[in-house]
């Protein structure tokens, strides 16, 4: 597969900007001095050992977790305790979860139209049309009237992608989207994610799928113990790691 490394034009407005962010869980210092700038249209893959704070970091971006020090800016707006700002930011940021988190009491179509109807106040007909369009894009339009419990894991995650896309977000966060799937289903989800990347979506992806990183990422970030240890474009990252910790991690995951 050809590697997609086209960089979006840089400007003053970062899609996501994190300045010296620190976070504690009680007494435990989970994120230490995180600084990151993401341009619009960039694809970032974040990798690292468990407990390194990768999921916590991206969950801070849509305020599923609160940071105690430093600043986070999403699309120019700062993330503070202001509920209105938080809701505005959440409308522009879509999120995929490891365990899909579809709403089991609603059909696939209702899962997709719920937020557009209730948050963006889009009328039902229009919301359903858009939902069908996105379900076709993730290649499961025929499942529209089924319940999530009737679908396979890969199908559920694709519904979750469609559900997020229905809100027309500018940024998508992926929290280990394929970790709960078996190899065949991983491919179907990754294919959809690659298409999203080709369409210019800004993506921050926590994943262990290094093949995806090599294909699609503009930058790979390695985190350990709550800090960003190294970041680089994929070719350099995988072939020429600068930090010992990175070398150790890569040797563990690439050798089997």
């Amino acid at each position: 597969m050809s590697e997609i490394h086209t960089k979006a034009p840089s400007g003053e407005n970062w899609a996501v900007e994190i300045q010296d962010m620190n976070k504690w869980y009680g007494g435990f210092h989970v994120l230490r001095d995180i600084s990151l700038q993401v341009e619009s249209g960039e694809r970032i893959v974040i990798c690292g050992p468990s407990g390194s704070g990768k999921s916590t970091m991206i969950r801070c971006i849509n305020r599923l977790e609160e940071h105690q020090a430093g600043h986070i800016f999403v699309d120019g707006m700062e993330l503070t305790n202001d509920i209105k700002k938080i809701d505005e930011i959440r409308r522009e940021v879509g999120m995929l979860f490891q365990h899909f988190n579809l709403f089991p009491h609603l059909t696939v179509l209702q899962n997709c139209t719920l937020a557009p109807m209730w948050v963006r106040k889009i009328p039902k007909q229009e919301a359903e049309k858009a939902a069908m369009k996105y379900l076709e894009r993730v290649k499961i339009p025929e499942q529209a009237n089924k319940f999530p419990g009737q679908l396979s894991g890969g199908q559920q995650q694709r519904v979750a992608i469609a559900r997020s896309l229905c809100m027309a977000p500018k940024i998508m966060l992926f929290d280990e989207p394929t970790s709960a799937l078996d190899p065949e289903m991983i491919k179907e989800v990754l294919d959809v994610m690659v298409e999203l990347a080709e369409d210019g979506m800004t993506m921050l992806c926590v994943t262990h799928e290094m093949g995806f990183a090599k294909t699609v990422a503009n930058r790979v970030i390695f985190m350990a113990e709550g800090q960003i240890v190294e970041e680089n474009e994929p070719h350099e990252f995988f072939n020429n790691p600068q930090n010992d910790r990175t070398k150790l991690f890569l040797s563990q995951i690439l050798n089997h």
Partner: protein
Amino acid sequence: MSTFVSKPELPPPASTVGAVGWLRTNLFSTPSNVVLSVFSFYLLYLVIPPFFDWAFLSADWAGTSQEDCTSGGACWIFVSRRLELFIYGFYPTKEYWRVDLLFALLAVLFVPQFFDAFPYKKLFGILLLTVYPVIAGVLLIGGIFGLVPVETGKWGGLMLTLVLAFVGIVAALPFGILLALGRRSEMPVIRAICIGFIELWRGVPLISVLFMASVMLPLFLPEGMNFNKLLRALIGIVMFQSAYMAEVIRGGLQAIPKGQSEAAEALGLSYWKSMGLIILPQALKLVIPGVVNTFIALFKDTTLVLIIGLFDVLASVQSAITDPAWRNVSTEGYVFAALAFWVFCFSMSRYSQKLERRLHTGH
């Protein structure tokens, strides 16, 4: 080489199928089970035929007074003569039609809920919860639209029991939901208030709540301010039951995986929208058994209003029993009261099972 010959298909041994088979497996399988079964049949033989004889075969059904209860069985004449007291309490006879109309309306709105094919179920359900209480209030209290006012002190019997239970149930559920949400809130003041409320009302017996509401409240209120007794009882019952309801619902809320509210938040849904559209529908479905249990307990707890001088169906049966015109009719009276309660509680139980089966579609 041999050819395959199918062995003949035989029926199973006679002692393992049919009624004989069922008896052998379920009642007479081991010696100790045989003993238990024989003993149980003996107990049933001691209890059921005499009861059946008393209640139906030897009973007196028609007549006008104690003198007509000549056979040794149940004196149902007592029930039929005092039935109006048991159902309407002291409601004026001329205005019985108002209560009858409400009973009929209740049946019309509630009974179709049991039938799957009925198209207007949802509409009837909403009417039952919103329009019906208003109509009931207007019809029972009167005073407007040319209706004779009937003060609440005259209400009694089954009608009063249903008023107490219906208002209690319809008010306790939303109030309980709010308390449960408040108890799980991250705002310390709200959480403290909800915990305090729940622990206070759960910590005292309902009878003392009613007693305090009825006897002690007037001592604290300024002179001349008179709080309607029925209203006091209703408030006490609703407060009490909401505390129980809150804990049942909180159990359901805790069972919903955190990922559900995270996904709702990530989509931009506000707290109330995610509660109303995502979390509560799932949580309430989970706790239907607990909620209906609380409703049934509430229904039976309404008998405690006797302590404050309100005559529900049990109290009116008791007062009729002490009437010197009827002797030895306590059994008949209590059997009637028990039957009345059983009919309503069992209906609620069946409806809840139906609801659970219907809501299981999909997942």
